[in-house]
């Protein structure tokens, strides 16, 4: 089944996410962690560490990476890939900022 992209949902103002922090977005299919870096970039990943399913939104955000709170796997925010010796990937989702608000592409986020 082919889901079309570009169903941008307004999920809230950028300032509601702490810098070097994250908030979650609950969707019917999955929970998504939306991260905000020190330089105000946003990234969205499935809120499950590829290692043991830890909530990445609870991790420490540093640069464009997050440390999983359970076992300290370091996950790249850009593509969800584990870094270093660890192998695994958290699915990433399109997210963007417009006029100070954060938009998540639900066309992708709601797809299987």
């Amino acid at each position, binding site marked *: 089944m082919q*889901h*079309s992209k570009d169903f941008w949902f307004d999920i809230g103002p950028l300032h509601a996410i702490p*810098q070097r922090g994250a908030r979650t977005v*609950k969707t*019917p299919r999955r929970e998504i962690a939306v991260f905000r870096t020190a330089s105000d970039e946003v990234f969205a990943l499935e809120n499950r560490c590829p290692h043991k399913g830890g909530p990445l939104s*609870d991790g420490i955000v*540093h*640069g464009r990476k997050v440390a999983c709170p359970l076992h300290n796997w370091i996950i790249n925010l850009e593509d969800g890939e584990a870094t270093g010796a660890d192998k695994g990937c958290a699915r990433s989702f399109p997210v963007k900022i417009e006029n100070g608000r954060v938009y998540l592409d639900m066309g992708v986020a709601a797809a299987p």
Partner: protein
Amino acid sequence: MSQVSASPRKKLVVLGNGMAAGRVLDELFARAPDLYEITVFGAEPRVNYDRIMLSPVLAGDKQFDDIIIHDDAWYAQHNIDLRRGETVVAIDRAARNVRTQSGMVEPYDELIIATGSRPILLPIPGAELPGVVTFRDLDDVNAMLTAAKGGGNAVVIGGGLLGLEAAAGLALNGMKTTVIHLMPTLMERQLDPNAAYLLQKAIEKRGIEVLTGANTNAILGDSKVTAVRLQDGRTLPADLVVMAVGIRPNTALAKDAGLEVKRGLVVDDFLMTNDEHIYAVGECVEHRGQCYGLVAPLYDMAKTLGAKLAGEQASGYAGSSTSTKLKVTGVDLFSAGDFAEGEDEIVLRDPSRGVYKRVVLRDNRIIGAVLYGDTGDGPWYFDLLKKSTDIASMRDMLIFGQAYQGGGAPMDPAAAVAALSDDVEICGCNGVCKGTITKAITAKGLTTIDDVRSQTKASSSCGQCTSKVEALLKFTLGDAYSASGRKPMCKCTDLTHEEVRGFILSKELKSVPAVMQELGWKTSCGCPSCRPALNYYLLCAWPGDYRDDPQSRFINERAHANIQKDGTFSVVPRMWGGLTTPDELRAIADVAERFHVKTVKVTGGQRIDLLGIKKEDLPAVWAQLSAAGMVSGQAYAKGLRTVKTCVGSEWCRFGTQDSTGLGVKLEHFLCGSWTPAKVKLAVSGCPRNCAEATVKDIGVICVESGYDIHIAGAAGLHVRATDLLGHVATEEEAIEYVAAVLQLYREQAAYLERIWKWAEKTGLEKIRAAIMDDHEGRRALLERFKKSQHAVRKDPWAERAAGQELHEFMPLAVLNTVKPLVPAE
């Protein structure tokens, strides 16, 4: 050489015969030598020459012939009709022709405006007097050289690139020269104050007087200039005044023709003006809001325009990064890009050689460079800047230059430091050179970084040269040097935990960014290892002042609960000394039922753990516990956890003192305190030690005569019995001594270091001396502990139940109903 083609060639007219015009034609001829019939109008009565080499001509290093770019033969070879000394006064865009001062009309198919810029003349009285010149063309140089023949005084207004080059030239020609500069430092647009300071010294060494922060008020004289008067009333005698305060794009002609002119003549990425048959190039243009006064951008523009005129599908001009070199013999200076304050930077200073190098970075890319005294690597830095190369892998050696970047792999730091000469400054803060350090190491038998710090001051201020000092120790002592015990905090810094703590106090660093900036952190915002450590160190060093950074805390301390394997949390309310009441138990039972707590467990620290609570439910759980008078047990904290007790003299037939009461008092006094690692206490009522106080971080064992205070026990990954710190007689003293030792640990230990580890590192005797023997010191520790407790006396659960930090617990959005996304086929 020329051929006459059957069809008439297009007519190209060029206004201006400077470097930009010449370069455009070079670029055009390289691609299409015969495409146009070309006429060039030049205001100067000579061929095209290299204007930026006028300074060496003034200084006598070069003759005019040396700086000619295109001689007469070149114009002839390309059949260019050069009208030298002929000024164009009007452009008729509708008729597509230009008219000269003598009334001649020249038609064009394509027109290039390359009229350059004019020196700015200050609108002050006397500016038009004979003897006042600018520094723009060969006529100006000749005027200066003529004036210099008579000796006398020269005043140069403007301490920028041109002004300083003019001043140096005039001084060489025997004039007593003064430079007047409006701003506080020379060349402030290209140099930072450090490099400007070195430059001013070098200029003054040439016998040139430099007056900074000086505003010119008037130029005095009747028939010719005699003096310059400053705003503050000072008058400087002058036989020659050179005005070098800047340039302005020369756009009068374009403006009269109705072309769009802002600061300069506006062009697009293909150097086209708002008339499709008129192009412009060089210092007269404004491209993407930018005007340029240097040669490199002009060459970049010429390339684009040359290709465009040749009919090529050229890529557009995208603007230029610029670099500056001052052409004064013996002054070696290079600058490029941005060097605003407060950026990531690497600095090398060597005062004895007059060398200063500063490379400014952002996200591991060079965005600016200022070099003074040794500019050999300027082009290399500029290249890295223009290419936006990631320099992370060569950062350690970057400031030493390209020679130290051997074969892609960075040169070993020890070898690089070994290669430095003895007079190279290692520690910029305290001005300590390599030779001073190596001599001290040899002569005084120094073996550690701390030795070097105390003996030479090197690396004792900002700590950024620590790795170099260490390399010097290795280099000087060879195998005799062992770095044992020196472990950098993390990959973000070369400093150890202890060193960072020391600098936080000595340099009064009060925020995470301040620490990272001042101590030269190698990463932009730290890592999960150093951020929590820094947050703790700052909290400990500046209680009340420092604003806690939740984003630098591990989730447990941020959410005030313990994360479990499934992402839920556990909640442990405090039970003072292990005591509870039916009401408290009832409240806990209610919470457990209402929030469907799957597991209720008694902990090893004599309290109750509620497991499996969803993050969103935490504030509500706390609200309910709070209502029953319960507070956070801080079971999640690097801080005081529990004080375990036995029933003591109140019930036990062996009890010697009220161990339960002391435990409750201790827990009340110490709770809420953040510490390097978790801290567990116990108080046993007699030496039978039912509270297991001898495997706790701090344990108190009650005896008939008072209280034995133990420290440094462990019963986790590592098992260790406590050491007896000392004996006190009263309960009051017991509390004071325990708090003091806790504070000493708070102030000295590395983050995540339990008390036993800190005690083994520090030595029990040292701790005993500080707590048991130094009564004044102990009381001071107690006072500092009390002060730190002022900042944490609020219950974090009650605060959050009342709505604080709500974002931590709430989803940003809940999207429940999503309509089918696939449109009907």
